Every structure is written in C-alpha cells, then in structure tokens.
C-alpha cells in the first residue's frame, strides 16, 4: 500500500504560530461511566444470586442469559456485519450435539465438553464459510437456513445419539461434572439443583464475556472495517479493508460462541432431539425478536429486548399459540413504527449511550 505524502510542513508552520488547541477523542459519557460502575456492582451480585434464588428463578435466568448471548451474537453478525443469517440454529444444534457426543459417547467432563462443542461449531463454520460467502443478501439468508436444515436431517441420521427421536443424558454421565459437588456442599442442595447452579454461573460468564468481547470488537479497527464492508463493500476494499477476512473471522468466532451457548442450553435440559436443537423458532425467531424489539446495532438493545421477552413469557407463555402470535405482531409493529427498536429510539432521542462505540472529537481549551 502506498499513501501520498501531504505537504505537511506548510500546515505545521501555520498552526504552531497560534495557541495550540488540544483535541482528543472521547467515547465515554457521564451516563456510560455510571453504567460501567453499575456493571461492576451488579456482576458480583449476579454471581451470588444462587444463594438466595429459587431453582425456577435460576432456570429463568439461565434462559435470559443464554437468549441474550445468542441475541448479541446474531446482532454483531447481522447488524454490524451485514451477514443476515436465518440459520444460526445450525450452530446451536451442532454445539448441543457436540456436547452430547463428548459426554455420552466419549465420557468427557461436561464442563470441558462445552468449549469442545464450540470448536465443533467453529470447524463447521470454517468449512461452510467459503460456500456461504459466495451468496449475498437474501441468498445468504436462505442458504444459511437450508444448511441448518441439512445439518438437522444429518444429525437425525446419527443413530448413536438417538437418531430422529433424540436421547437424554444419564445422571451418571453428568455426575462427574466439575463444580457440581462443590456447589452441592456449598448450598446444601441436591445434585440436579447444584448442576443448575454451575450452569447458571457458566451462562453468566458466557453472556458477560460475549457482550464485552463484542463491545471491544465493534470499537476496534476490525469493527470499523466490518461496518465499512457492510455499508459499501467495494469502497471498504478500495481503502484497504480486508472485508472477506474480517467477515470470515467474525462468522467463525460467532459460530464458536453460538456452539458453546447451544451446548450449555442442552447441558441444562439434559435431553436432545434434532427438531428441538435445530429449531428455527427457538433459536432464530426468538433471537430476532429480542434484537428487533431492543434495537439492531446496539449493545444495550438486546439487553432490553431479552427483558421484554422474559416478561412476556412469564405472563403469557401459558397461552401457547396466542403468545407466539402476539410476539409476531409486536415484532411487526416495532419494525413498522419504531425501526430502531425501543433502545435505539430512546438513545437517538435523548442521546443515551451505555456502551458508547462512537468517537467524538472534543476540544479542551486550557
């Protein structure tokens, strides 16, 4: 790469003659600093939740954390990266099947099996990437869905893990999971409840880790390059952004994390079937709902969105199809009248930033 040298000597001479204004880049706002402090206070409290929470609440929170993690991952892939996938259930399912294979067939510790399952999803994504990336826009969306369906049917053929009907993890296979004994003794609870506690902690760790990584990523040079390649691929390439490489990296990393979340979800359920693990409604429709309601391309949006989903589910899930119908209607209305979602609209109106990704040029006069 070559850059033209500017005739800079002239410019320097001119500015140095006057009093030099001090410019600096600023991202943080007063609100974002407060949010940072709040996060530092809330995180330890969330770690301590199992000491007081009922098992039902704990399972609800596991749902909230895993859903939020999936929503953040889809948001960075589709919102920032422009890779609009309708097939992320492929990696949830692969992660789940990877975990079951490692635990039930190879006898691994379930905790160790989670990153292994993530690796399986990442390898699949790395192989599928070159094929998927030949497709653009709507072709990519449909292609990703077809791949997920093909993988679902493939897993249904895999007889050692129960074929089309699926299988359950025996309590013997789960008994040697690291941390369970410890949690049992610590809280004085039975093995199944202790397993939920460990799963809860991992879910918390995953969602915080994923959210924070995404935040760092979108603020980095790579994140900037990614946004540029989404907005105008040719222009981004012309200024030296390696768009294919960034997108490919993102695709594989998102699959890795999605696979780990899928593994964790099915570790908690301890029962798997191809239809459930590769369900487009459970792992894509809900996830899209969370992102859309909260606000695409914001980190705060999915956090708000998942709380809305939880509230709706808590109050209405007994109504079955009526509940899903309502979710669909809400999603349509939000897209029609509030395209930036609840958080996105509020942030634009009152200039709110909890996770500021923009950089403002601020002048310090001293």
């Amino acid at each position, binding site marked *: 790469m070559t850059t033209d040298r500017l005739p800079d000597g002239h410019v320097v001479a001119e500015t140095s003659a006057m009093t030099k204004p001090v410019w600096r880049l600023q991202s943080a706002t007063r609100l974002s600093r407060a949010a940072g402090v709040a996060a530092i206070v809330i995180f330890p409290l969330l770690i301590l939740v199992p000491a007081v929470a009922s098992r039902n609440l704990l399972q609800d929170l596991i749902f909230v954390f895993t859903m939020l993690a999936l929503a953040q991952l889809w948001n960075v892939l589709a919102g920032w990266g422009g890779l609009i996938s309708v097939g992320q259930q492929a990696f949830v399912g692969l992660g789940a099947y990877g975990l079951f294979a490692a635990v039930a067939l190879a006898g691994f510790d379930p905790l160790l099996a989670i990153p292994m399952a993530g690796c399986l999803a990442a390898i699949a994504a790395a192989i599928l990437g070159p094929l998927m990336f030949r497709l653009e826009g*709507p072709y990519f969306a449909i292609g990703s869905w077809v791949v997920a*369906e093909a993988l679902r049917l493939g897993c249904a053929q895999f007889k050692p893990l129960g074929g089309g009907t699926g299988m359950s993890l025996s309590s013997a296979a789960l008994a040697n999971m690291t941390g369970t004994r410890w949690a049992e003794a610590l809280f004085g609870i039975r093995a199944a409840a202790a397993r939920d506690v460990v799963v809860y902690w991992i879910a918390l760790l995953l969602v915080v880790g994923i959210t924070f990584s995404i935040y760092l990523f979108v603020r980095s040079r790579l994140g900037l390059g990614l946004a540029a390649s989404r907005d105008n691929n040719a222009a981004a390439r012309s200024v030296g952004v390696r768009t294919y490489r960034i997108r490919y990296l993102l695709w594989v990393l998102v699959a890795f994390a999605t696979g780990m979340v899928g593994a964790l979800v099915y570790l908690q359920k301890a029962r798997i079937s191809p239809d459930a693990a590769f369900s487009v409604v459970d792992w894509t429709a809900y996830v899209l709902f969370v992102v859309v309601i909260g606000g695409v391309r914001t980190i705060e949006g999915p956090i708000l969105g998942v709380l809305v989903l939880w509230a709706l589910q808590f109050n209405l899930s007994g109504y079955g199809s009526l509940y899903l119908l309502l979710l*669909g209607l809400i999603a349509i209305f939000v897209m029609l009248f509030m395209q930036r979602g609840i958080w996105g609209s509020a942030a634009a109106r009152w200039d709110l930033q909890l996770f500021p990704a923009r950089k403002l040029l601020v002048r310090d006069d001293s």
Partner: protein
Amino acid sequence: MGMGGLDTVLEGVLLGGVYALFAIGLSLIFGIMRLVNLAHGDIVVFAAYMILTATAAAGVSLVVATVVTIVIMFAAGFALQRLVLERVLGDDILPPLLVTFGLSIVVQNGLLLVFGADSRRLQAGAFESSSIALAPGLSVGLAPLIALITAFVVVVLLQVLFYRTALGRAFRATADNPQIAQLMGIDQRNVYALAVGLSLAVSTIAAVTFGIRSNFDPSIGPARLLYAFEAVIIGGLGSLWGTLAGGIVLGLAQTIGGRIDPEWQILAGHLAFLIVLIFRPRGLFPSRRR
C-alpha cells in the same frame, strides 16, 4: 434405465411441478421487488384453509371456492403491500425480512388457534386418486399431472402478461430500475402492490393443487417455503421458466434420494440445492438483468 428408473424420474418431475407452482408466487416478488417473503409458505397454507372452509363449512364447490379465494387473496396481497411491506422496503434487506418473518409467525399461530393442529386435505372427489396409464406398468396420478400442467400454464400466462402487456412492461421496467421507471410515469407503489397481489393469487392456485395432493396443517409453511426458495434460487432470480426448472430439479433430487433411502429424501433436495449454489451461485438460468 429400466422401468423403475423411468418411474422415479416421472414421479420426480411431477413432484417438481407442485414445488414450482408453490415457488412461482415467491419468484414473482423476489424478481420484481427483491423482496424475500418469509411468510410465503404460511400464506399458501392460509389460502388452503380458506378454500377448505368455503368447501367444507359453506358447502361451495371446489372451483367456486378457489375462484373466490383467488380474488380475496389478490386484494389481501395488494393491501399487504400498501399498508405494511411498503413501509419497510428499501436498500436494507433486514426490515422486510423481519416483518415477513413476524407475519409468518402470526399466520401460522393464527391458523393453529382457529383450526387446531390436525392435518387436513381438500376433497376433490374421485379425481384425487385416479391415474392414467402411460405404458404397461407405468401410470401417473391425475392430480400430480394436473399440478404440473397447471404450473406450466401459469408460467405461460405470466410470460404473456410480462412480455405482451403494458402492465408487464411496467413490472419489467420497475424490476430493472425503479427510479427511472418512476420517471417514465410508472407508479411504483401500484406496480409493487399489483405484484404482491398477483403473487398471492398464484399462491392460491398452488394451495389448491397442493391441498388435494397432500395433507396440510398450520405448521408446514416454513418447510414448504424452503423448498420454494430452493426452486427459485436453483432456477435463477427473475426467470419464471427457471423457477419451473428449479422445482423439477428439486423434485427429482428428492425422489431419487428417497429411492436410495426414504430418510434421505428431504436431505437429498437440500444437498442438490447447495451443490447448484457451489457451481452456479446465481442459479441455472439467471436472467441477464440483475
């Protein structure tokens, strides 16, 4: 190739006719508006339930029920575009994708609430089970044959509409370049609304042939949508003949896969789709315009 092989090919082509008919409505708006309608499968199922209600509950004949439903669905499509889709169409494909995905969930669960999860079938009398003998030991069902012929006729009629009428010229012009078409005095909003109306009308024809041939329930929309998309993409964007060919390729792949192992039927279709995409990312017969 023995008689068994010929039988498989024939069955695959006929199945392809049903898929193609399913896909034509999708192909229309994908080609003209670049709109990915994720609710298409559920809309076809919705039309099938409307016809079912008219024939079973109101006691109307199948033909009358179909004609009435076509008219209603055309109006519904026009309204859908003007009231909902128009607001989200633009350079960003995410909003229309999300709205139609929401619509899919709404239609699917609405049908589930009203009709329950039982699977249904449209009754067409003796017609549905009768077959024609082509050669000794080789016969085809009348219903699948009519579905294929219908798909062929629908494509011919749409081609006539596209290349011989003013409306067709407006469709093609808008597909090529909406801004310039608008400058030439074409009302883009009307063209798009007519296209969605036409898509839903064609979907109703698909609903009849499909509802006679196989059972349906509220949950099958998304799987059928996927087959329809595969047919459209295998055939190539913007080509209705391509969509017909794409449906037949998919039908053949599924039937041949199913002969090897019944559990492989659907998977074989998906694999054929992915293989076509590897070698021809724009489909087999893409139209010259983008």
